[in-house]
């Protein structure tokens, strides 16, 4: 019987246990996450700022950065729209095959990216389904930009939807139903009711999706063809430099990739902070719909 504080005791109540747990988290965090990041930074500059600058200024590295950012600029919006639409369809509507759709959305999560890359080879490769037809039409998908885009999009397709579906399921449909019964159109309902309720999860999904697109290695490495200055994304470029025994160059390029990720996270934090004032339980606090009858 533990009624002293009116609630059952929790693990962290004993100071010794609390300190141990916090300490463990800090140590693992430092060893697993912080240390490698610090090493990347230190190694990148181990031959001086000049060498770092030369690596980054090299046309191949610059192109790799450009390609990675360009891929993200296309893949992330596409997958955001797809993710929101899919989550909306799955959680706010009933239709036959709903569960099947959920399974489809999650497939890229469960299969290895390399399998995705090889699957694209079988579809668009010269030995594959459409390869010969595409070649005779002189359309290049594999070993060119479209292949990289497709592979990146495939791998990151579930990220936004996965963030949204559990939340939207928990939120239920009451608000949307109320809005509709008050006469709001589908768009109006979405933008005034659903979107404000999911925006933080959406933002988080977009950030994860972006990080993954930029970092994707496996699927892209199969369909890229590794042409320097043309189809080498930043992660592939890092591997190439590393294989060249150019460790410092590899670390310099890696630090740029890490930097891109950090920028994404900072953007997320800033956006969150901006919205923090209005954030307190938007689902219940926000005025629901001002739709006219």
């Amino acid at each position, binding site marked *: 019987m533990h009624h002293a504080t009116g609630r059952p005791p929790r693990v962290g109540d004993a100071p010794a246990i609390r300190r141990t747990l916090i300490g463990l988290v800090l140590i693992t965090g430092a060893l697993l996450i912080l240390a490698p990041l610090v090493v990347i930074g230190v190694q990148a500059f181990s031959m001086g700022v000049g060498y770092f600058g030369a690596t980054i200024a090299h046309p191949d590295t610059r192109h790799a950065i450009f390609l990675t950012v360009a891929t993200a600029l296309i893949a992330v919006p596409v997958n955001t729209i797809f993710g929101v639409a899919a989550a909306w369809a799955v959680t706010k509507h009933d239709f036959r095959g709903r569960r099947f759709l959920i399974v489809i959305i999650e497939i890229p999560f469960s299969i290895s990216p390399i399998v995705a890359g090889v699957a694209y*080879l079988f579809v*668009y*490769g*010269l*030995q*594959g389904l459409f*390869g010969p037809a595409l*070649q005779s*039409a*002189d*359309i*290049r998908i*594999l*070993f060119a930009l479209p292949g990289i885009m497709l592979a990146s999009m495939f791998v990151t397709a579930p990220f936004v939807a996965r963030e949204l579906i559990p939340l939207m399921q928990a939120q239920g449909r009451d608000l949307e139903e109320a809005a509709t019964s008050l006469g709001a159109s589908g768009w109006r309902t979405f933008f005034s009711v659903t979107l404000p309720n999911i925006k933080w999860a959406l933002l988080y999904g977009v950030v994860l999706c972006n990080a993954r697109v930029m970092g994707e290695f496996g699927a892209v490495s199969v369909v890229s*063809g*590794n*042409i*320097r*200055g*043309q189809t080498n994304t930043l992660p592939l470029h890092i591997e*190439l430099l*590393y*294989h*060249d*025994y*150019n*460790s410092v160059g590899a670390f310099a390029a890696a630090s740029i990739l890490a930097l891109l990720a950090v920028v994404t996270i900072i953007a997320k934090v800033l956006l969150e902070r901006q919205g923090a004032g209005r954030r307190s339980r938007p689902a219940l606090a926000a005025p629901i719909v001002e739709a006219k009858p």
Partner: protein
Amino acid sequence: MKRLLLAGVAAALLFGAPAHAQQPTSLLNASYDIARELFAAVNDAFIPAHKEATGQDVAVDQSHGGTSRQARAITEGLEADVVTFNQVTDIDFLVQNGFVSEDWQSEFPNQSSPFYSLPSFLVREGNPKGIEDWDDLVREDVQVIFPNPKTSGNARYTYLAAYAYALEAFEGDAAKVQEFVKAIFDNVPVFDTGGRAATTTFVERQIGDVLITFEAETKAIAREFGEDQYDLITPSVSLLAEFPVAIVDRVAERRGSGELAKAYLDFLYTDEGQRIAAEHGHRIENETVAPEFAENYPEVRLVTVEDVFGGWDKVQEEHFASGAILDQLYGQR
């Protein structure tokens, strides 16, 4: 509406039409994974030389990767006009798939291998264990590092070189030869999957007394990780490792790039091309240039896969096929 659609299709055909009519001004060279610096230097020299000879401005693009993967990518549509590989068998794969003509080895000198290398030794500074030749590798106090011959082409050369050495030393006594090779395997504390990982094991984890890899690699490693920390040791006998080149005929015909592709590969055999190869750690045949580099490349007697093992097909069948000699020796560990 219909007319608009037609106009659109016509425009698409017009602008999308393949520009085969004129000689293309770019070339894609699909190469092995660690050849970036070598071909960056080659391309920097080739482009002005070609301009001088023909007045044509060209660009050479590079794709680098494991050559089995590169060959595979070409059969799937990677439009490489030429391949510069480090494995003959991967060009054979392109031959089987109809991308390279069967007589490719007679198209360029030295069996279409402009430069060559051999499995060689890298030891720690001062060679504390006194490792000089293959028979030192079976000593109980020596730890040997090379990648897994099941997954690494590089390590297959090492395996075959050790095997060839033993065949001579034991005058063809198969049981003794295999015991010797197995004893080397027993001295390998970790089998990494690829050459780069084995280098990391040796250099960064400081495991092992000797790293075995291509001579060109040992030079690159010493340069990158400190010449004063490693010594290069050339064994008395080793296996010729060719770096074969070929025109990918099917792509070159499609793009009309045959002449340019030939000019590019020919360039590798010129004095200038040979000098660049030698500067990047490769051995060359060129009689004017080779003497300039003689002191960097100690004498070594080289045997070939053809002479000792009867060709790559036979090696594949007798040594590397599932359940063959390599499996038996490796499996006994």
